[in-house]
């Protein structure tokens, strides 16, 4: 029978991680954490929970693996094409009149959506006056995002998503392929700023016209979700937009009165 950790053991590991490394995962939704840690213990063939716990406490390199494995970094370009259509047709035109635009991708993971947004901006002729701030708590994925290098075999799917989202250009014109990888154009990367930022512990660092945070909040418990909504509220321009994942909502937040939801989309506009 495989090892399934108890709630108490989960709390112990998360407490250790906070004590030793300063990363606070204690307000993450427990069910997903349970599953990720059970999975990691199985993959890495730990004979017992105690040995797993000891390894994390004492081996910094293993801790990096822990962060990599328990945070979910599954993403794709133009994921949910309908969302990117709404971004293209409703959000970008509304912020286009600004002389200078700041966009924040919070929890950007390996950057697929950051490049998607940059492509939309380029096609709306707004990229030259926009800065996209892309942050994640995990420095390793931030480095990957920064490189602009992705697997060639994903491009077929991404190109289909791009077309489904209303893209009219030749998707392959945005990158150069080499062996089994592609590198995205410097023109796109030039307008991106990558940094580590932890939504649990770090504060607001600028004012944005658009904040995208998709499929990040599902991993947080309700209290932490509220805290992050507060951070976004503080970081949004007076008529700024907040974009969440398909199954995430601002509905239960005390800030909902200050936002108006775009028709059927998980995009809210600040109205006061």
């Amino acid at each position, binding site marked *: 029978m495989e090892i399934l950790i108890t709630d108490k053991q989960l709390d112990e590991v998360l407490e250790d991680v906070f004590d030793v490394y300063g990363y606070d995962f204690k307000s993450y939704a427990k*069910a997903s954490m349970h*599953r990720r840690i059970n999975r990691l213990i199985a993959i890495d063939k730990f004979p017992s929970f105690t040995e797993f716990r000891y390894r994390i406490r004492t081996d910094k390199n293993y801790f990096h693996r822990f962060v990599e494995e328990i945070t979910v970094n599954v993403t794709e370009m133009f994921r949910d094409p309908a969302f990117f259509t709404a971004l293209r047709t409703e959000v970008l035109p509304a912020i286009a009149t600004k002389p200078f635009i700041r966009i924040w991708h919070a929890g950007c993971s390996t950057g697929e959506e950051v490049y998607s947004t940059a492509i939309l901006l380029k096609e709306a002729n707004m990229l030259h006056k926009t800065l996209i701030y892309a942050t994640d708590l995990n420095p390793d994925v931030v480095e990957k995002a920064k490189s602009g290098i992705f697997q060639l075999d994903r491009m077929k799917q991404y190109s289909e998503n791009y077309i489904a989202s209303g893209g009219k250009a030749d998707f392959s014109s945005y990158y150069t392929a080499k062996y089994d990888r592609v590198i995205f154009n410097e023109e796109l990367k030039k307008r991106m700023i990558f940094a580590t930022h932890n939504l649990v512990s770090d504060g607001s660092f600028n004012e944005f016209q658009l904040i995208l945070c998709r*499929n990040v909040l*599902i991993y947080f418990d309700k209290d932490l979700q509220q805290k992050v909504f507060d951070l976004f509220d503080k970081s949004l321009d007076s008529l700024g937009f907040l974009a969440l994942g*398909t199954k995430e909502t601002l509905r239960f937040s005390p800030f909902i009165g200050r936002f108006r939801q775009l028709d059927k989309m998980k995009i809210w506009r600040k109205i006061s």
Partner: protein
Amino acid sequence: MAQDQLNSKIVVIGGSAGSLEALLDLLPALRVDLDIPIVIVMHRKTAPGSPLVDVLAIKSSLPVCEVEEKEPVKNGHIYIAPADYHLLFEADHTFSLDVSEKVNYSRPSIDVAFESAAEVYSDGLTGILLSGANADGTHGLKVIGELGGVTIAQDPDTAEISYMPEHAINNHVVHHIMNVQQLAVYINSL
């Protein structure tokens, strides 16, 4: 916390190819005053605005809805796992969603939902595996059994595609084999 305020019993149903037919027969046969939650995890296309919820709602006198994240698991409701997310259960009997890697080529994966439900509901859980062409669900049923729950497979002779329930049966993780009518009687008696 008052433990008795949380639902202690739950039915989680996993299905893949051919399971819609079984559900369309099963849901109308459930009693209107059923006082437990039913959660359905079905492999399906990720296209937005999928009509699955509507199709099942027409057949059911109990409310049918797609799961929202952090929503409480309520008795007398039929919940459908959203496409392209894994479905998990929190200890306080709320739902969580997760977009991590596919399991058995599937998201939602039946194994993931079964295992998570087993950890929370242990012997209050009944896991039911319907028709399908995939091995998903077998490992989940094993965990349900190990943690004290009841495991049921649709009778492969009555399943559109027998592979999935058969796979579980052949792996000795199934307590009962039932056709859809027997499933309805069983659930109605919970």
